């Protein structure tokens, strides 16, 4: 191009030398200016690129601060895993709720503000003002932790009010309210499990939070998402419990009815599947609603306790089937063997202890001892066993140690160690004295009689867990009785219901087998027993030929003047629970043929 310019110039020089010379100088100048401009532009661009790199790599403090105000890191909250019953019904779930808050710093007149908020949203203006006055320097005063639907609608319709806003937060809800309240437990404000299953499975129920970084404009509106720093939240998988809320409702309704009828202070019901150890229902009376506002008063703390596993009691006659079955298996007595239980109902043991029977059984068979719940008969046969054999029988059924159900607060119960046995122990233990058990232990041990002699481990988790290997799918059985001994005991326990102390549990629909018990309540402060305080209990299974459920019903401290025998206060409730549960479970009713109609029954008086 330069060569062509020179040729042109040469041609022009020939024509007019002065003009050509001027044109050549001008062209050179343009060329130099052009080159300089290109160089300047290049330098500016290079400088710009260097600056961009510097700003990206190591921005100055002031710019970094500005960038920070435009970046917002948002924690994406994971959903706490739901608790489901065995049918998939939601027992505990997490969802969002709005809380109403105020920033007092931007309120000009708290009095007018409180009145406006109060009258618009249905709060007491004086209380709102009081809340604002309590924390005048705070920028965040919560007026309502959880707006109900009605107030949420009112707030949305309310014209914007400076200083008043809502915040979305996660809340835990228990749709079944007080049903299984003590078992489910509750969470704290931060969503951490504090009691019951919420606490036990806190780790499994807690998800992994995610995060997202927004770039915002000057008005704080989100512009775009920083893709590289986006981590999605991982919600926790729901946990399926072995509880069936329909069976739970049946159990709680019948328990409450029995407790009201007999003016009892407390009661428990456990419904178990004897073959798997799954707990289908676990009811406590009085109940506890995890949705209710909690107060840490001693009364409420006591109410939250799942007394099915945390409290022990002296079982009384309900304990007899275990000693009876073991003595039969060890050959200490034969079911048809006759035992003299005395016609007076009084017998003095070789250790000079006087034993009484509430209803003298006279001379009866070993089966009759259990049917009529004779203390004397039990003591006479127990004396044929070695102390060690008797002690081993108790521990074999799992008494004196936790059932390993994993339920929070579960205690071991008390079995007197061999070295502390007195000469009374051999005759006391067979009738359920000198021993303390939880309702869970008794019900679990009864499962062994129902399932052919295998001690199951109770579990609160269903076998089928959604989407993963179930922690409840591992099952361990410990054989404590031969199938024959278990079968024999069951058939005698059936007679307890048809002709013995448990007649009020006799059903028209299913063949129920069970045992009643009435025990005094120990006085923990002074020793001995509390006067007039009893636990009436009944533990049973059904149907006889193929037991599907075992029900333990325990009624504590019926009111003064009320009947306190297990056969009267606990057996009818247990019968109703068995009938309703088996119908619900799809077990076809099979009217038992071995018994007279319940309408022909005479009143059962005792245990």
């Amino acid at each position, binding site marked *: 191009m330069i060569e062509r310019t020179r040729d042109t110039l040469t041609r022009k020089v020939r024509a007019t030398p002065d003009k050509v010379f001027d044109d050549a100088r001008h062209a050179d100048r343009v060329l130099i200016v052009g080159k300089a401009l290109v160089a300047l532009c290049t330098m500016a661009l290079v400088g710009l690129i260097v600056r961009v790199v510097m700003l990206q790599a190591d921005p100055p403090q002031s710019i970094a601060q500005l960038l920070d105000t435009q970046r917002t890191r948002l924690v994406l909250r994971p959903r706490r895993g739901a608790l489901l019953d065995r049918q998939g019904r939601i027992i505990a779930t997490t969802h969002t709720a709005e809380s109403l808050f105020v920033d007092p710093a931007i309120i000009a007149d708290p009095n007018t503000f409180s009145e406006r908020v109060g009258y618009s949203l249905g709060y007491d203006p004086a209380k709102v003002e009081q809340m604002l006055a309590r924390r005048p320097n705070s920028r965040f005063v919560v007026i309502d932790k959880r707006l109900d639907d009605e107030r949420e609608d009112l707030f949305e319709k309310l014209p914007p009010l400076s200083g008043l806003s809502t915040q979305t937060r996660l809340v835990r809800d228990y749709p079944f309210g007080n049903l299984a309240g003590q078992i489910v437990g509750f969470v704290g404000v931060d969503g951490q499990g504090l009691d019951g299953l919420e606490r036990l499975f806190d780790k499994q129920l807690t998800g992994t939070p995610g995060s997202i970084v927004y770039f915002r404009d000057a008005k704080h509106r989100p512009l775009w998402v920083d893709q590289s720093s986006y981590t999605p939240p991982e919600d926790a998988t729901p946990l399926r419990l072995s509880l069936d809320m329909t069976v739970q409702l049946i159990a709680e309704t019948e328990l409450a009815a029995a407790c009201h009828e007999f003016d009892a202070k407390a009661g428990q019901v456990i419904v178990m599947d004897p073959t798997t150890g799954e707990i289908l229902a676990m009811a406590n009376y009085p109940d506890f609603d995890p949705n209710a506002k909690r107060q840490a008063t001693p009364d409420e703390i006591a109410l939250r306790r799942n007394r099915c596993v945390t409290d022990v009691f002296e079982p009384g006659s309900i304990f007899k089937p275990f000693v009876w079955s073991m003595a039969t298996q060890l050959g200490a007595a034969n079911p048809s063997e006759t035992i003299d239980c005395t016609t007076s109902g009084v017998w003095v043991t070789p250790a000079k202890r006087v034993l009484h029977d509430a209803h003298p059984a006279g001379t009866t068979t070993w089966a009759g001892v259990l049917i009529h719940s004779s203390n004397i008969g039990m003591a006479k046969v127990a004396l044929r066993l070695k102390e060690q054999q008797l002690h081993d029988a108790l521990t074999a059924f799992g008494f004196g140690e936790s059932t390993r159900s994993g339920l929070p607060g579960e205690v071991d119960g008390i079995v007197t160690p061999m070295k502390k046995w007195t000469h009374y122990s051999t005759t006391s233990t067979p009738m359920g004295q000198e021993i303390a058990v939880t309702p869970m232990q008794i019900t679990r041990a009864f499962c062994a009689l129902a399932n052919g*002699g295998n001690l199951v481990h109770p579990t609160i988790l269903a076998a089928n867990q959604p989407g993963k290997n179930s922690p409840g799918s591992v099952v361990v059985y410990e054989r404590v009785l031969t199938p024959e001994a278990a079968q024999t005991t069951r058939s005698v326990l059936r007679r307890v219901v048809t002709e013995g102390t448990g007649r009020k549990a006799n059903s028209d629909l299913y063949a129920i087998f069970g045992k009643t018990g009435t025990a005094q309540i120990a006085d923990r402060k002074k020793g001995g027993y509390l006067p007039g305080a009893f636990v009436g209990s009944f533990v049973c299974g059904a149907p006889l030929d193929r037991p599907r459920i075992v029900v333990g019903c325990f009624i504590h401290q019926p009111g003064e003047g009320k009947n306190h025998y297990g056969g009267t206060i606990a057996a009818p409730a247990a019968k109703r629970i068995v009938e309703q549960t088996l119908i619900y479970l799809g077990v076809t009713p099979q009217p038992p043929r071995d018994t007279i109609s319940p309408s022909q029954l005479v009143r059962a008086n005792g245990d």
Partner: protein
Amino acid sequence: MRTKLLLLSLAFTVLAVALLTRRQQRIELSNQIARFHHEIDRARQETWDLQTRIAQASESRRLIRSLREQGLDLEPLTAPDPRSPVNDLEQNPLKKVFLENVGQNGNPQIP
């Protein structure tokens, strides 16, 4: 020469405008993504709320109350299906283990 410079500048301008347009599109797309994220999160939370409402509305006692209020005299369940999913022995792994190791034909060890 001027024409060439002009053309060069024009080319640069077009390039710059194209780049800026692309950048703007990218920002708008990111903004859309941000809104979608927000929408997804909101929809997720709405699903939770709906689940809770359904659970509350279908709670056993509430159903019983509703049936009573409606005066529906339902026939009692006398012969339910023993092979309903929850009662079916074969669907419960624990039962299976028990039957395999302990019981015979669904019966506990009864001689």
